[in-house]
């Protein structure tokens, strides 16, 4: 069937995450952005929601099973709260989800339990490279098999929380195919470089990382002999980013809508004018359409169908939508939208990131 209602469990989860986003993320997002730091307390509270363990099997210490759809539902709420802090919170997922999806039994047993504890896990992933034309399917970082080891060489960027990371999932090409390798943070040759300064999501600490002759045992190749299928992970990444984009857009739309109803010009609220009201109507339509595209892709992924196309279309669409909506929100606020007293300028900067982040966020 085609139906669009959350289950009571999903509804409850979404409500919980929304409350967290409203009370915690919305309270600190501006300060976090300006100080370029995510408050530890808020991260810890977010971690205590137990979202990641909810995606991990009980045999590995979690209490759920992976559902791209359920994730998409609450990710929208988190991004509605704040994208930068959300990406901080989702950093462990970058390591855990690929392990859960592609790991060998031994890898799952070895690593997944650390994502089901009380402490925020210090694990991350390195995929993006400092090039203009980046393609996750054609990486410049290489992994070469030498005896019982893999030797990794290459430069990465956009690696979140790299400084304190105890574990890296490093994507590299092995004979022209993208594979992923587990590297400890203290392995010789792992060089965490300077912090990356981006136009948005500045609360999130991201670093350049260089891997110079980093040797890892062959058992650290994700998925063992079978390896990974990067397109499948990119599909998940697109669903994740699509859901987050809907959240950011919704935040901007709601803010602009409320502003337009209160702001009086020429004797009446500006929302009384079609030029403003129609912008808001179109924002609503595009947000709703994108949400449904994301849900459809997530549903297909969970149902075991090939979701590549649905996710790609959804993400392509979301990239454009979030930029249009956040830009529209700045425009509705006019001069005030350009001032940092209001959040819409931040949401526009954050919205621009989605087209760039393919592969860099997986949840």
């Amino acid at each position: 069937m085609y139906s669009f209602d959350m289950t009571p469990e999903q509804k409850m989860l979404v409500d919980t995450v929304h409350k967290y986003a409203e009370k915690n993320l919305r309270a600190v997002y501006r300060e976090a952005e300006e100080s370029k730091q995510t408050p530890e307390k808020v991260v810890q509270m977010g971690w205590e929601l137990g979202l990641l363990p909810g995606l991990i099997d009980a045999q590995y210490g979690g209490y759920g099973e992976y559902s791209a759809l359920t994730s998409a539902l609450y990710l929208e709420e988190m991004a509605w709260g704040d994208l930068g802090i959300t990406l901080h919170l989702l950093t462990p997922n970058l390591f855990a989800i690929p392990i859960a999806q592609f790991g060998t039994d031994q890898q799952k047993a070895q690593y997944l339990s650390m994502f089901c504890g009380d402490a925020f896990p210090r694990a991350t992933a390195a995929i993006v490279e400092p090039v203009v034309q980046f393609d996750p399917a054609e990486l410049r970082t290489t992994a070469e098999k030498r005896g019982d080891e893999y030797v990794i060489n290459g430069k990465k960027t956009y690696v979140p929380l790299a400084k304190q990371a105890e574990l890296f999932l490093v994507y590299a090409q092995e004979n022209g195919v993208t594979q992923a390798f587990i590297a400890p943070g203290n392995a010789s040759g792992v060089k965490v470089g300077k912090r990356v300064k981006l136009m948005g999501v500045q609360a999130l600490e991201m670093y350049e990382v260089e891997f110079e002759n980093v040797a890892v045992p062959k058992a650290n190749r994700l998925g063992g002999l079978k390896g990974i299928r990067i397109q499948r992970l990119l599909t998940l990444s697109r669903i994740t980013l699509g859901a987050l984009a809907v959240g950011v857009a919704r935040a901007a739309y709601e803010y602009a809508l409320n502003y337009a109803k209160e702001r009086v010009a020429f004797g009446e609220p500006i929302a009384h004018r079609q030029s403003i009201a129609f912008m808001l109507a179109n924002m609503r339509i595009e947000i709703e359409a994108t949400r449904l595209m994301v849900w459809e892709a997530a549903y297909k992924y969970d149902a075991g169908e090939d979701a590549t196309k649905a996710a790609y279309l959804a993400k392509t669409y979301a990239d454009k939508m979030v930029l249009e909506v956040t830009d529209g929100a700045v425009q509705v606020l006019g001069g005030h939208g350009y001032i940092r007293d209001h959040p819409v300028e931040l949401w526009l900067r954050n919205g621009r990131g989605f087209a760039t982040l393919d592969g860099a966020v997986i949840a």
Partner: protein
Amino acid sequence: MPIEFKLPESIERQLRDVQVIAEHVMRPDSRYLDEHEHERPWRYIHAMWPRMKEMERANIAAAKKRALKKQEALRAAQTNGHGVAVVEAPPAEEEQERESIANLSLIHMIEMLSWGDAGIYLCIPGGALGGAAIQAVGTPEQIERFLTRYTEGEPKWGAMAMTEPQAGSDTSNIQTTATFDPETQEWILNGQKIFCTNGKLALEESDGLVVVWATVDKKAGRAGMKPFVVEAGTPGVVVAKVEEKLGIRASDTATIIFDNARIPADNILGDAEVKTGVGDKGFKGAMKTFDATRPIVAASAIGVGRAAFEFTRDTLAKEGVKMEYGKPRWKLSAVQADLLEMEAQLRAAWLLTLKAAALLDARRENKLESSMAKVKAGRAVTIVTQKAVELLGPLGYSTEFLVEKWMRDAKINDIYEGTGQINTLIVAREILGYTRNELK
């Protein structure tokens, strides 16, 4: 029902059948009927009529059951003295089961028929919008008297006449009058209706009917607007003109003149009384039917869009331009990016349409969703078909291919059943919580 994106088996079966008609009955006649504007798509009509008769039988039976229940509830309310406590009984379980995908099923069928040919599709025999209005508000007797014709004999059509030369989107401005003649117990209709889809087929070329909106009291505004059933062969009813159009040329678009046309007293649908204030139910009822018909227009739009997209994609594939799903944007050619955008636009519009229809099936409020779907689909198909003509170069603009026709056909979907602008206005009022005075 949890979130699910899966085509029900029964709709899939139905679609296979409809696709055969679209491919083998509609497409071969597309160009000919575009060039011979007022000829009828008989092959299509005869292929659809047996199917429509069967569908109408089921719809009418269900509508009659609902109408009977309503009547009983009304009688009970009258005898218990409250007079207004009309509670619509929920449909019996099995009926609910059958009806629970009726609109979903319908929009799938219409999407496929419009993929075949959007102009020919509109000549579908059956009660159409006129029949739907009678099913929605008619008494059991009216349903029996007016709609039985759609279950037997030769093909017949039904139509709805709302638009007038001076009343398009502002339907409350209609000037056609209905005056009651107490002596003969008849309504007398006077006025002119334009842009009536299938008007000629319904009134002159078959034993059909048209539901005509007229005012019984001009001073009462919206409250005075009432729907009347005018049957074929009624003296004083003349089809004065059949329009020549940009697209959907196979479809019959009629101007109808009512010159002292007399119809029986009980050809009025719903209450004859004029109740101002809370009581402009007649008008609201008419507006309510748009919640059901807008997803249908959206579906038709998407069908044309899909035809244009698929043809463009497949034609370009033969030239070596392949769709790629998964590559970074910078690796796509401009044409690939255009194709991707076309497909995404159609998917976005289609999902909004599915949701609007699913809400309707669940008998839930869908005013916002149905207008959103209509806005999006009308705009998407306009962009997609125009792009298709562009991408196919000299042959795209030529009548060698059907894309130029599809572009002309597509445009109507951004216009009828509420223009894109009117529907955007509805969306805006809904999300802002504004009345039509606050947001004009």
